[in-house]
Structures are given as C-alpha cells and as structure tokens.
C-alpha cells in the first residue's frame, strides 16, 4: 500500500522527512552543480570573447597590411600590363629589325636579350671589324632616337675584330 493521505480541511505543507529530505538534498546538490557549471560556462564565454577580440584585431591588422601593400600590387599589375603592351607594340622580331637597320656594314649582332617589364631593356653583344665601326654603331643607336640609356659594356679587342656588349632601353611613346 502506498500514497500519503491527508484528510485535513486545509492540507498543510508537510515538513521534509526521510526520502523528502534526501530528495531535497539531491536537489540542492544538483542546483549547486548547475551553478558551478553555469559559472564555468560564463568563464568559457569570457575566454571565447577574448579570443574573438584577438582574432578580430589580427584580422584588422592583416587588412591594414594588405591595404598598405596595395600600391605594390598595383605596381605589379602595372608591370604586367606594360609587359603585355610592350610585347604587342615591340615584339622581338620588330626590335631585331630596328637594330638590323642601325647596324653599320662591318658590325654584326652576336646575341640579343630582351627584358619586357615597365620598359623594354636590351642587352646586346656585337662584333665589329674595329673600334671605328663599333663607335659608328653606338652613334647610330643614339641618333636614331629609338633607344635611350645606352651604356657600352665590356670590350674585347683583338687583332682582327672587336667584341663588345651594350645595354640600352627602347624608348616607347606614352611610357615614362
């Protein structure tokens, strides 16, 4: 048989005894455990918020760095655009033809290296019968107006001929 009867005209709240007290104790322990868990969760939230703030700071710094490096990327983009444009307006075949038209009769082109960038830089190695012919070639380059920054390099003078290197830049209209 089970069940607690109460025939009172106004049932009272019974004093906690026996299992009731045990249940109350377990309930209190559960409440304490829940409060401790909530406190731990609150601390975790604080740590998580601090981590988020740090991450946001790092992100802002990274964005700032990206912004500060913006001109470089722009410059890279400009270089790439110049390279594309130069390769179209001054392809190697055209440059070789221009140089060929400027070579005196006793000067020949041994090698040519083209560097397409913001501007077109050339490095030549020529072989000439003698210094007079080589100087004539340099004079032709200067007077053509198509090349600037003409820098004669090393010269190897032999008994029969002269070998020399020249660095120069092709002048392009509309380019700096």
């Amino acid at each position, binding site marked *: *048989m*089970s*069940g*607690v*009867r*109460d*025939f*009172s*005209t106004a*049932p*009272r709240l*019974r*004093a906690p*005894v*026996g299992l009731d007290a045990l249940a109350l104790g377990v309930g209190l322990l559960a409440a304490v455990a829940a409060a401790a868990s909530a406190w731990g969760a609150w601390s975790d939230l604080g740590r998580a918020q601090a981590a988020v703030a740090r991450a946001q700071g790092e992100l802002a710094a990274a964005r700032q760095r990206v912004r500060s490096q913006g001109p470089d990327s722009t410059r890279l983009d400009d270089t790439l655009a110049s390279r594309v444009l130069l390769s179209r307006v001054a392809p190697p075949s055209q440059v070789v033809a221009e140089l060929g038209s400027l070579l005196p009769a006793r000067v020949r082109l041994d090698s040519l290296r083209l560097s397409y960038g913001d501007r077109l830089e050339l490095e030549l190695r020529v072989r000439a019968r003698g210094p007079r012919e080589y100087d004539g070639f340099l004079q032709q380059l200067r007077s053509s107006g198509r090349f600037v920054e003409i820098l004669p390099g090393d010269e190897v003078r032999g008994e029969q001929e002269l070998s020399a290197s020249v660095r120069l830049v092709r002048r392009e209209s509309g380019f700096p």
Partner: protein
Amino acid sequence: MGVIGSRLIVAFDAAAVSGAVASWGLRGLRVHAACRVPLAEGALVPSPLDPNLARPDEVRDALREVRKSLGTNGRRAVLVLPDGVARVLLVRPEAGVSGQDYARFRVAQGLPFPAGEAITGVLASPGGDGPLLAAAVRRSVVRGYEELAAAVGLAQDRLDVAPLAALSGLAREAGAGRDMALILGDSALCLALFEAGVLRVFRCRRRDAGPGEAARLRDEVERTAALAGPGSLPRVKLVGHGAADLARELSSVGLAAEAGWRSSEAGSPWEAAEMAFLGAARA
C-alpha cells in the same frame, strides 16, 4: 526524542487520547515515546455525521496532557481520527480507469451527508494494481478535531483515519498466504483480509470489549475469511487497544494470532501493538 525520521502521532478514540513519537526504519518500528490519557465515557463519541467532541474541555485537557507528556513542543503532529468516523469502502477499479479517481467517486456515493462536505482519501495497493481502500469523512467533523489540536498548540502535519493508518503499516506485513489485519478501536473494529498480499475483504464492526470478546472475534474472523471464498483460516495480526491480550486469547481458541507489530528495541517500555495509529508513521 528529536530522532531524525521519527513522527509525532496523536490519535483520538472514544476511551482515550494517545500519542507517540515513532519511526519505521530498516530495523523495523521504533517507539521513542508514547502515552495514553483516558477519557471519561461520552466525552468523545465517534460518529461520521455529528460533531464528535461531546465534552470538548475534557478532550482538550487530555490532549494537552499528551502533548506535555511527549514533550514535543512545536513539532508537527499527524492527527488520527478514530474508527467509526470515516466511511471506508473497498473498491475494485475497472481496467483503464484511474483507480484513485474511481475510488474517490465510489466512496462519495451513498454518504449520509452531502458529497460536497466529504474529504476523501485512498489507500492504494502496492504497484498501483488491485483493489483500493477509499475513505470519506465529513468536513465539519474533521474541523472539530483540528480546532481542538490548534487550541492546545499542536502544529498539524496531516490528518488520517484509524483504519487506513493502521493498514499502512500492516499491509506491508502480509505474506504469500492468507493474512488478516484486525484493527481494534475503542468502539469499533475493522477486519482486512489479504491473500498473497492483495486486499480482498474489508469490514468494520462495532466492538463489544466485554467478556467473551475473543470468541466473538474468532467468529468475525471466520465470517470475513468466508467472504473471500474457501480456504484456510488466516493468520491474524492485531493492533489497537487490548491487542496483546486478545492475541493470546485468540491463540488459545485455535487461531494463529499475534501482535501486529513490536518495537525493534529490546526492553521497550511500550507495547507497540496497543497503538494501531503507529501505522501512520509508515504512510
């Protein structure tokens, strides 16, 4: 006194006001304190209809003496009303209905007072299956006892009726065979027959405590057992005023009878079976 888990119980009956501080633990029943203050005849008349306290001053004095004797100042007390105050009915709920609700509904039928004035309670079977014992008492009758307890400064815990309080303790003692709980009140007695731990029959009779009571009780036991169908005579456990003597007398007339419960403490000065209301400490 002041033992954790113990309860203060105060019981009213036609011949006395009794009280005890008792607890049911793993070792059984422990009675920490008890007293019984007799009442003059006619001071308290158990009745389901009319106010029971014919001479309230005498009952109040007895109750005050009980409280003083137990020395439980401020402790909440379970009040137990005597046999004869409640209408008690054994109810067998149909399958699929709420047993408690059905029992309360059934016991409220046929009351000698308006059902709206009834306070009902149920003693359920273990596990919730099987018959239920439902009881109803009149609110005005209960109020008389409550006011008396408040007048002497008793803080009321809950209120129970004697048959159900006693059966709260005795039902757990029922074994696999036939057992009968015989609850002795001063003016009424109740018989509850258990078969394999399930309550089968419940009856209440007026009590005649005069000469030859043991023989009359034996007849009542046999009639009650017959109501449950053919079978052996039950083992009888008695609680209430005079239980110890009657158990001996019933044994002498051929019944297997014994006191319903004993205090687990050796040498206890109180005869626990004399106090049927101690079952309320086990409810």
